[in-house]
């Protein structure tokens, strides 16, 4: 008995005092996830996340898709129940929450900006700032006033104040100026270029992209009263800077060196509407449909070369001959679906999204976030509106080159583009076009199809061109969504600041650049 007591007493001493408590408890380091990260890895993921946020993937819809619909370029295939939020405009602050994903993505860019110096990766600052500017521009175009100066500061500012949308746009131009300085000072070093999924470390192209984004933001404000002097000054500054614009190629994320033939690692557009990793067609392949208006407009202008790249003939792609329609590729076999139609246009009888976007097996194309064609039309509009800016070419040259670039990116023979010169076709032939700005807007709308839905919707709101038909589901002729609600996630957690924005009516609360 005595012996046993002794053993126990010894055990108590051991447990109670013998071991170091702190050492015993010091096991609270997460063995499953990293406690810190090198900014280049964060930057790589941020770029890929931007692509999926904009494109969507098999897991959900991206912001561009809504743009394609509300710009009247695409509609929904019948054979699915009509999505009322998109085609009847019955949406609430619980629909279309792109906000959360965008800010989450922006946080990654901000991390790269904040930690680049300390990690000896200064070259990340410029590219991250350019991407940050683009995403904030898209947020403004979706929501108007947004948190900018107070945003992305974590627990330091738990209720970020909203900035005026116009002021955000101005700040973004300044942010791009900063980015250009950073880019010129800090070329990518070593093998870090691989972390740049866009230009593989080519900083000159980043500067050109920054300049192109500036043009996008400046021209967007061109109808705002009293902005002319500001816009002209900024355009002349870009010309003086001298690096020029993205020309003859697209800004795309990823590509063959990045996307893998594996589930979840495909080009996001291919993943959403094309095929899965094993080559099986996605069920959503029948969902997006080029609109009747788009198809018929192209046919009416004799623009079948681009039509055949924008859409497949009815009954879709021939899986044994990827990139080619099953049916003969003649104009009669291309049938659009009226915007918002919920019956009468079954998938098998209508055209689907074409080979410029989806070709079986092409899972590793870069995901395009800005086309060269868009840049040319921006320049054309700039020169047309402000003939005294120092841009070197004439508006006509930019316009005609825009059409050529559109043919090129779609994969159509560019000789077809040149053929429009002197053709006397309204809005195709510069000389014959009665309203040059309309011609630019309409050509730009065609060129943005399949690539830049958000831009197409924003430009439609700004220019009201082309005159696209109302959704057949909507009785009011002029009711169009002009913006989104602030999402309920923000409204529920940042109550005072969201309330301070007043009542949002997405059908009448216009953005600052949407003046008519």
């Amino acid at each position, binding site marked *: 008995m005595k012996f046993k007591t002794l053993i126990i007493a010894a055990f108590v001493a051991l447990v109670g005092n013998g071991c170091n408590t702190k050492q015993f408890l010091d096991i609270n380091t997460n063995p499953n996830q990293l406690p810190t990260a090198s900014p280049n890895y964060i930057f*790589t993921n941020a770029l890929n996340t931007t692509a999926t946020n904009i494109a969507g993937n098999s897991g959900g819809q991206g912001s561009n898709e809504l743009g394609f619909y509300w710009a009247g370029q695409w509609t929904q295939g019948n054979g699915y129940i009509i999505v009322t939020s998109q085609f009847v405009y019955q949406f609430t602050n619980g629909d279309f929450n792109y906000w959360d994903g965008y800010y989450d993505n922006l946080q990654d860019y901000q991390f790269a900006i904040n930690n680049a110096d300390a990690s000896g990766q200064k070259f990340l600052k410029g590219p991250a700032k350019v991407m940050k500017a683009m995403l904030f521009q898209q947020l403004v175009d979706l929501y108007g006033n947004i948190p900018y100066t107070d945003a992305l500061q974590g627990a330091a500012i*738990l209720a970020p104040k909203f900035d005026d949308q116009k002021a955000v746009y101005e700040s973004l131009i300044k942010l791009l100026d900063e980015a250009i300085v950073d880019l010129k000072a800090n070329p990518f070093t070593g093998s870090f270029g691989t972390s740049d999924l866009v230009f593989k470390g080519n900083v000159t192209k980043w500067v050109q992209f920054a300049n192109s984004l500036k043009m996008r933001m400046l021209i967007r404000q061109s109808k705002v009263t009293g902005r002319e002097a500001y816009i002209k000054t900024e355009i002349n500054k870009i010309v003086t800077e001298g690096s020029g614009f993205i020309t003859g190629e697209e800004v795309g994320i990823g590509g063959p060196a*990045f996307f893998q033939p594996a589930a979840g690692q495909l080009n996001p557009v291919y993943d959403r509407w094309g095929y899965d990793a094993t080559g099986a067609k996605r069920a959503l392949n029948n969902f997006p449909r080029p609109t009747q208006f788009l198809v018929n407009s192209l046919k009416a202008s004799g623009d079948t070369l681009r039509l055949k790249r924008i859409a497949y003939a009815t009954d879709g792609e021939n899986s044994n001959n990827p990139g080619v329609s099953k049916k003969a590729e003649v104009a009669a076999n291309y049938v659009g679906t009226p915007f918002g139609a919920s019956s009468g246009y079954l998938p098998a009888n209508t055209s689907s999204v074409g080979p410029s976007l989806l070709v079986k097996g092409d899972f590793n194309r870069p995901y395009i976030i800005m086309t060269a064609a868009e840049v040319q039309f921006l320049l054309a509009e700039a020169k047309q509106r402000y003939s005294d800016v120092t841009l070197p070419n004439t508006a006509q040259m930019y316009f005609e080159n825009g059409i050529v670039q559109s043919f090129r990116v779609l994969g159509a023979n560019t000789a077809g583009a040149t053929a429009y010169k002197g053709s006397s076709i309204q809005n195709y032939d510069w000389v014959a076009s009665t309203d040059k700005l309309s011609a630019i807007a309409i050509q730009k709308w065609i060129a943005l199809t399949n690539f830049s839905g958000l831009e197409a919707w924003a430009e439609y709101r700004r220019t009201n061109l082309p005159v696209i038909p109302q959704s057949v589901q909507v009785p009011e002729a002029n009711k169009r969504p002009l913006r989104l609600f602030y999402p309920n996630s923000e409204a529920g957690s940042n109550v005072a600041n969201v309330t301070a924005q007043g009542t949002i009516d997405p059908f009448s609360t216009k953005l600052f650049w949407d003046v008519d």
Partner: protein
Amino acid sequence: MARLPTFINSPTRSKATPWLTFTERVGILNNSRTGKNTTGKFTYTDWAKTKSFVPAPFFRDGDGTGIYRAITDITGSVLDYSGTENVLNNEFQIQLAKDFGPVANRLILGNSLYQRTTNSIGIGSSSIVVPDVYNVSNRQGILNGGQILTQERRLGYYADYTANYKNWLILNGSFRFDQTSKFYKPDRPSNYWSYPYYGVAVSFIATDAFPAIRGNVLNYAKFRANYNKNANDNIPLYGLDLNYPNGGSFPYGNTVGLTVGNVLPDPNLRPETVYSSEIGGEFQLLNNRINIDVSAYTQNSKGQVITVRVPNSTGFSSLLINVGETKNWGYEAELKYLIARGGKFTWDASIRYSYNDNKVLDLYPGINEFQIGGFSYANTNVIKGERFPIMKTDGYQKAPDESGRVLVNATTGYPLRNTSLEQRGGVLPRHIAGLGSKMEYGNFGFTFNFEYRGGNVMFSDLGRQMTFTGTGKWTENRTPQVFPNSAVLNTDGTVTANTTQVREAEYSLWVDNYRLISENFVTPAWFIKLRDINLSYRLPQSIMDKTKIFSGASIAVYGRNLITIVDKMNYYTDPEFSYQGNPTPGSQATSVPTTNSSIGIGINTTGQTPPVRQYGVNINLTF
């Protein structure tokens, strides 16, 4: 699924002196589980994909002979997982017991040590090659998989003292000091990861203290009161760190991508403390025929660790914080009546009632409410100054004339949806009542228990789905109609009765309009259940004695949840079911719900298996 638990439990006791006892107990538990999830592979025929059609006259005008044909094969999948859990528990106690005069004293001093280690591994593939062969090597594409490791440790010291005066006045005091790894970091002050707590309890048996008051009416009376401060380390494991997980789908081949985690931990996270007090009494009346038990309690929880939604514009979606203070309070009463006793036939019946309510007293600086669970259109919320969780949903736009009529679009006749979410009520039952009875006649026994719970609301996503598919009875009127009880708001602000028929009552009214108004699917969540009913027979002892093997045997027929009565508006399901998982019946009663444990309560979806009635036979043999 297979489970292989091993237990080692070795109590060692030794008595050093008559009043001193040492107890040492080591517990080791090893648990391993393995499992497999599979999806079969299915390939559609070429005919189904390219040639199938709907024959005339069944296709709709304009559809031609076209049909929405099968386009996607099901590639099949396999997931194999296994997990091990290892728990080590050591408990050492010194028990001292000594009487001083009429006071019996008992003191326990103890030390406890706890460690839990887990390792979960899963591998799988989202595509299989040869049908019905569920092995990850039979796959196309990359191998999916992951691993989660955890370890936690806790160390506690405690003292528990009980003084018993003549068995009618009992006083108990306890004190405990815990240290936990879950709040530990080498650079955190020690009071962030160690915490004392204590409690006192007193009970007084009046009928023993003053035998004079004992009579035929009052046979027994006991009063009790206690006060406790409790503390716990309820924080998600490794919750103190901001993480940098792999970005979505990364790594892509050799390309690495990481992302900044979305849950930002407050750097000052501390363990939660709960202060509770309770008073109660127990009485036996009329020759012990009637038993009454009553109690009232309050419980204040301070600094509960909870994940709150923060604006995404901060760059993070959630913040892990100590919330201010929540309070629970209520009372309980039980009355038991012995109807027949003493003879071959005994019969008793009892009724129970309890009331529980709660309130959020304080949240977090600058935050008055946040969502904790649910959908964007119907969710549960914690709101300062309100009971929690509160259901909020979107709903109808109501006529401003307070008539209760709903507004419709003057052109289409469809009801207008109010997009902002409004409070619909609490989701936890305020009132719980029970009725039970037990009868015995010789070797036969019969028991049953009814329970009522109510005073709360629920949202059923099933309602949306059944509106969509048109299977809900509420959608049966597909004829042209004016939306019931509706009005039109004129531009001058006046309200007139609506006479416009809905544009299309066959489909669009229901699927595009009614379905999206979540208020339609919020119903009172009260229910009455026959929780269990049991008829048993015990074999006579004389037979048992003859077997020489068994010392007792009984057989019982039982049924559970045989009757469930719910509100007439509740077409959907058992209100005790929520998307958080199916609770064991009655389990919500066993502990006071917290903002963490009640996230999904009140919201059910099509993801839950429907409630079942259970019948069974129990055979009990005692050796």
